[in-house]
Structure formats: C-alpha cells, structure tokens
C-alpha cells in the first residue's frame, strides 16, 4: 500500500518536474540556427510537452493566451474605470454651482480686486495680462519653464541622435530593428520633401509672410492692451517661420535661424524673464520700492514689466514651436 502510494507520488512528482520517461513517438526537432530573425524561427517550443515542468507549462500557456487575456482584461477594466469616472464626475457636475450665476463662490473678493484695482496696480488694460504676468507671475514663469523643458528634451531626443547618424553611420540598433521591421517606404525622418518648383506656394508665402510677421508682432506688443500676448503672438510668428521653411526650404531658414540661434535666443529670453521677474519678486517680498514705472493705462508703454515679458515669451514660443516643427520633419533645426 505504502509502496503504491509512493509510486503514485513519484510519478506525480516526475510529471510535475517534467522528468518522466519520454514517449516513443515524440519528435525532437534540431535546434534552430540562432541568427534567424525571430519571425522566421520554427515554433518548436511546444512539441516537447512531456519534458516541461509545471512551471514551464504555465509560462507556455501564458505566452500563448496571456497577452490576449491580459488585453481583454485591461480593456474591460479601463472601460469600467472610465465609465465610473464619467458617472462620478457627472454626478459632481450636477451639484456644482450653477453655470453663469453671479453669486458663485468663484466670484469673490479675489476677482473684485483684480478687476477694480488691477488697472492701477499693474498698469495693464487687459486684466488677464495683468493677472498672469503680475499678480500670479510665478505660475507663468513656471509655464515658460515647462515650454523650455520640453524644447530641450525634444532637441535632445530628436536632434542629437540624428546628427550622430550622419556623422558615423547608422546606430547599431536601427540597423537590426529598423531594417527588419520597417521595410516598406522611406524611414520616418525624410517624409518631408522640398520641391523647388512650387510657384503657388512661394508666391503666396512671399505675399503673406510679411503680413503674418506683422500680425504676430502686433499681438505680442499689444498684449497688455488687447487679447493676445506673448504666447499667442509667438505662435503666430512661428507659423511665418514654418511657412518660410516650406516655401523656400529649410536651408534658407537655417541661414538665420540655426540650432545655436534657437538655443541662444530661448535661453537669453528666458534669462531676461527670470532676472526681471526675480527682481520684481524680491522687491515685492521685502517691501523695497521697485523702480519699474507702471505708465498710464491704455498707452503702449504701460503695464510695467508686462511688455518686455511678453516680448521675451513671444521669442521663446516662436522659436520653440518652429523648432518642434523642424525637428519633427527634418530632424534638425
């Protein structure tokens, strides 16, 4: 009895560990040569079922079904999460203060001071410009820093590597992966082809680029008087640069706006921003009299630091957005 039990246990143990006798009819294929790409490797893993331990069998099962099961589970869970979040938020929205109502909590003494005394305290006719560049200027400084961080990171990821490629051939990984998996079409970086004979585009660009540039400058310079400011004006300026690059080729833009210009202009503009705002924060916090005049509301030279700050921000934004475009389409500025 005991012996039998032990035999059964032994065979079970062998089955679990995968060291049982091999059946007569099992075929063991020869090992594939190791340098075949994985897509062409013969699928030999699952023929030697009896030799596999329970753990290996589990991993095999997981390899076949796991990804499928996991994606189904993941999809179900994420839909569920989203439905729950939307339902919760809808219930929340229903309880929020009513839309457009005067007595809402947000219309409090904070707003009252911004509107009633904002003109005199910041010198800006545009209350929003006064708010973001004077009252809550630290947020806006952080926001410019976000743009700077992103510009630097994108330059790092897309810029340096591709230039490296032209210097010393392809990097080893792109050789193996890029070639194997990506055999149709040209590589992603040369999607942009410049055509010399596009007369319509060039004509339109010649006519409209000065107008766009002027529009951008007006929006930047009038930021404290009318809707607009550094960010929107800078975006308009960058479209002029992008249009020029498309009409006349990146080389022509590169003559006056290279990577070095981009870095120097962004860093310098942000530096001026940081220095002037730092001065303003320092004087404000220590109750020192600030030497910056506010000017009269409605004049072009008014609003204290708002005008120079808008110009700095405009430069940063114009350069960065054009830089993004050039890096994405050409891999270089």
């Amino acid at each position, binding site marked *: 009895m005991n012996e039998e039990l032990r035999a059964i246990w032994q065979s079970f143990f062998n089955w679990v560990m995968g060291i049982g006798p091999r059946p007569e009819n099992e075929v063991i294929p020869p090992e594939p040569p190791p340098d075949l790409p994985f897509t062409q490797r013969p699928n030999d893993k699952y023929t030697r079922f009896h030799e596999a331990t329970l753990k290996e069998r589990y991993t095999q099962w997981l390899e076949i079904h796991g990804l499928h099961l996991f994606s189904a589970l993941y999809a179900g869970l994420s839909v569920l999460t989203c439905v729950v979040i939307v339902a919760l938020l809808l219930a929340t929205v229903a309880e929020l203060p009513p839309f457009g109502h005067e007595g809402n*909590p947000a219309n409090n003494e904070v707003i009252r001071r911004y509107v009633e005394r904002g003109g005199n305290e910041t010198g800006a006719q545009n209350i929003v410009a006064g708010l973001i560049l004077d009252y809550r200027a630290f947020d806006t400084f952080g926001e410019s820093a976000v743009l700077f*961080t992103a510009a630097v990171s994108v330059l790092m990821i897309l810029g340096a590597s591709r230039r490296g490629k032209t210097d010393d051939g392809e990097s080893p990984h792109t050789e193996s992966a890029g070639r194997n998996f990506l055999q149709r079409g040209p590589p992603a970086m040369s999607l942009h082809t410049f055509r010399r004979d596009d007369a319509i585009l060039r004509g339109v660009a010649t006519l409209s680029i000065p107008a766009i540039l002027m529009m951008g400058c007006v929006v930047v310079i009038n930021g404290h008087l009318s809707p607009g400011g550094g960010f929107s004006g800078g975006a308009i300026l960058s479209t002029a640069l992008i249009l020029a690059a498309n009409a006349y080729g990146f080389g022509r833009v590169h003559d006056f706006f290279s990577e070095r210009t981009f870095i120097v202009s962004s860093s310098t503009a942000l530096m001026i921003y940081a220095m002037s705002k730092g001065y303003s924060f320092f004087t404000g916090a220590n109750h020192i009299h600030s030497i910056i005049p506010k000017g009269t509301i409605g004049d072009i030279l008014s609003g204290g630091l708002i005008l120079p700050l808008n110009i700095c921000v405009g430069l940063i934004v114009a350069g960065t957005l054009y830089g993004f475009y050039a890096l994405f389409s050409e891999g270089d500025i």
Partner: protein
Amino acid sequence: MNESIGMFAYNIPFASIFLMMISAIITPLLPDKNRIPEKLSCVMIGIVGVLSAYLLYALTAGGQSLSFNFMMGHFPAPWGNELRAGPLEAVLSLVFCAAMLLSLTGNLSSTAEDIAPKRRNIFCVLVNLLTASLLALTYTNDLFTAYVFIEINTIAACAIVAVKESPETVRAALRYLIMSLVGSGLVMIAICLLYDLTGHLLMQDMSRAIHGLVASKSYIMPLTVSLALITAGLAIKSALYPFASWLPDAHGSSTNASSAILSGLVLKGHIFTIIKIFHRVYGLDVIHLLRMDTVIFILGLVAMIMGSVHALRQTNVKRMIAWSSVAQVGYIFLGVGLNTTAGIAAACLHIIVHACVKPMLFTAAGGLSNAAGHKKGLHALMGTFYVNIWAGLGLIAGAFSMMGIPGFAGFASKLSLTLASFGHSTVVWALSALAASSVLNALYYVPAVIVVLTHNKDAQKNFTAHAPTMSYKVSMCIFLALNFYLGLFCMPLLRLITRGVSVL
C-alpha cells in the same frame, strides 16, 4: 516673522528655486568641454543645500519652530503667489539637495559611459530643472503653482530616463510619460473643481473655504470627488502599488544617476505634495470625514506586501531595487494613512531615509554591475564585492537598512512607524504588515548580499578590474555615514520633523 529670522534666511526659499532655474537656463549656453555643465550643476546644488541648512538653523534655533510666508511679487495672499517655509520644508529641501548631489557625483563615471557627450549638457539642464521643480513643490503654497511644477517635474523626469540612448529607455520613458499624464490630468480636473467650489488657489484660503463648506454640509460630494481625483493623480505619479507598473521599467532601464534621482527624489516630491494637500488644503479632520485616510492606509498596506512580492521575482538587480521602492512608498503611505501628526512625521522620516538609502543602493548596484562587466543579472554579480568593496559595502548597508536591522537607517523609520501606529485603531494591521514586509524584504535582499559576498574564482577572471573613482568612493562614504547617522541618531531629527509637521 521677517525680523525674527533675518532677511537673509527669509529670502532663501525664493533664492534656492531661482538659483536652480537660472543655472538650468544658463547651462545650454555653456561650452560642453571639461565637464563645465556638470561642475556648475553640482556647485549650484551644493550652494542651495547649504542655504537650506542655514534656513533650517534659522527656523529652529533655540528650540523654536518658526514658519513664514514669502510673497512672490507685490501682492499679498489671496491675490498673488506665495511660498511657505517651515522646519519640515527646510529639512526636506536639504535632504533633496544632498541626495541629488550625491547621486550625481557618485555616478559620474557611469553617466559618462551611458550618455553621449552631446547629451550630457542637456542632462545637466534637466537635472537642474528637476531640482528646481522639487524645491518649488516643497515650498509652494499655491495649488496651481504646484500643478505647473508637477508638469516640469514630469517632463524632466521622463527625459532623464530617455537620456540614455537605447530603445528600451525610450519605451520605458513613454510608458512613464503616459501614466504620469493620466495622473496630471486628474490633478488638473481636481484643481478646477476645487477652484470652482472655493474661489481660491492659495492653500490656506482654500482650506478656510473648505472648512466653511464642510461645516454647512454643502458640496460634500464634489469635495470628495476632488479629493479622490487629486489623490489618485498624485498616487499614480508617486507609484502607489496598483498604479506602479511603470516604475520598474523606468527606474530599471535608465542610467544609474537617473535611477537614483527618480527613485530617491522624484517620487518623494509628489508624496510630499500629497501630504501638504492633505494637511494644508483639506485638513486632517476633513480627510478623516471623507474616509480618504482609510483608503490610503489600505493601499499602503497592499503596496508594502505586493512591492516586495514583485521584487522577489526579479533577476535583474536594478529592477529588484526598483520594485523595492514600490514597497517603500507603501510604508510612507501607511504613515500618511494613519492621519495623525505622529504618523505623518514617521512618513516624513521614511521619505528622508528612503531618499538617502535608495540612491545609495542604485549607486552601489551600478558599481557592482560595472565591475561584473555591465551585466545586471543578479547571478552575474557573484563575488563582485571583492572587486569594488565600496559598492559592496553600499549594497550591504542599503540592504540591511531596507530590512530594518537596528543601527541602519531603515530601522529608525520602521520603529517610528510602529510607534505611531500604537493607539491607532488599525494597529494590528499596521504591525503585521510591517512584520510581513520586513520578512519579505529580507527574502530578496539577503540572497543578493550572499551572492555578492560569495567568492567566485572563475568569473572573477572576466571582471573588468578598473578601480572605483575618487568621487565614487567619497560619495559612497557620505552615503554610508548618512545611513549610520539616520540609524543611530534619528531621534533629534524625528523631533524636528514632528515640530515641522505641527506647524505645517
């Protein structure tokens, strides 16, 4: 308040954020010869660290615990931005600067190997921005400023993962970025909801408005939802367990300096933001009323166990350490979930301990795998202790610390967590989870230590026998000293933190 601490100390929070920002902005303009950018970053971080130490001294000299608000600009609290500094903020910024500096100097050689020369300049920019954003998150008293700096932190953190050029890091960085962006989206929605309910963005004004709402029992549901969203968003960013799937990829594949910075500091910045929001925006009583403390407590318990269970299954030493970070984040959230001053103080102590120990572990693991010819598998490290003794000592001290052996840093924080959980209704759960997690920690750290200490004649022939550099040895020495200091003399620090929490 301005007079009692002196004008110099009063300006330190502002000056340290701006110094780091200016150093980040100026770095792209510098020539990238002679490692000038790296030297500049290290010097700047060092200066900010010294300034923070002075601020700490000024705030706590003579047994007092002062705190002050710093007006950013010409307009007072509900209208302008504000910074706020107290003993806790000063201690944390000191620790952040010290850990950042040591992570950089300790890994100088592996950074030089992993990062192309053209990218090293930008790496320094990103490190500076990361430090600036961590300092801003520590000091800010304005929820929207916190959001903006969280975004800087996110981009810079993902970029220092991708700075090492390999397909693996790009994938890890993308995964990290997408998870982080879900998190910041949730935080943004929550801030909008809170602004709509209170009409303020500064923390103490928000807090006053929220207490008014709770007292009049109005808008309880939107308040709960906003709290849940902001906690979930920041929990994703600080890798609380169910949301931690991105962490091992990002921390395991990046260069050693990045892993050390991400594990030791970036997670901590977000956790401290949660603590600040709980403490200063909602208030502990409201958190308890809305039951968020229980949720955090349970998630912390789960993270403590599951992080270690995942770490047990790793064969790559850096991924093992990364999963151990998930478990350690669980400890911190356990302390936060206790929702008492003692619990939060213990959580802050664990933030400090982990910010000192985890960079040491990553630096040590980097040194060991470098000695083993850049292999990261645990079995490949056999006998590497005898090649790079400093790295070996660092790994052993770090492992003992994570297990909670008395005399090492981790013991201090585990002890204070244990003490904090006494008298709390959940004491049994907390204690059993602490015990179980310590045992699990030992289960994967002890084998690692044994492997490293085992003599292996065959493999040692293949080892690249270049000795650790001077900067590596010095940084490791300071790491070890910090570890023992925290393990043996933590009580004054804990008292300091408790005072800091009480005026938070």
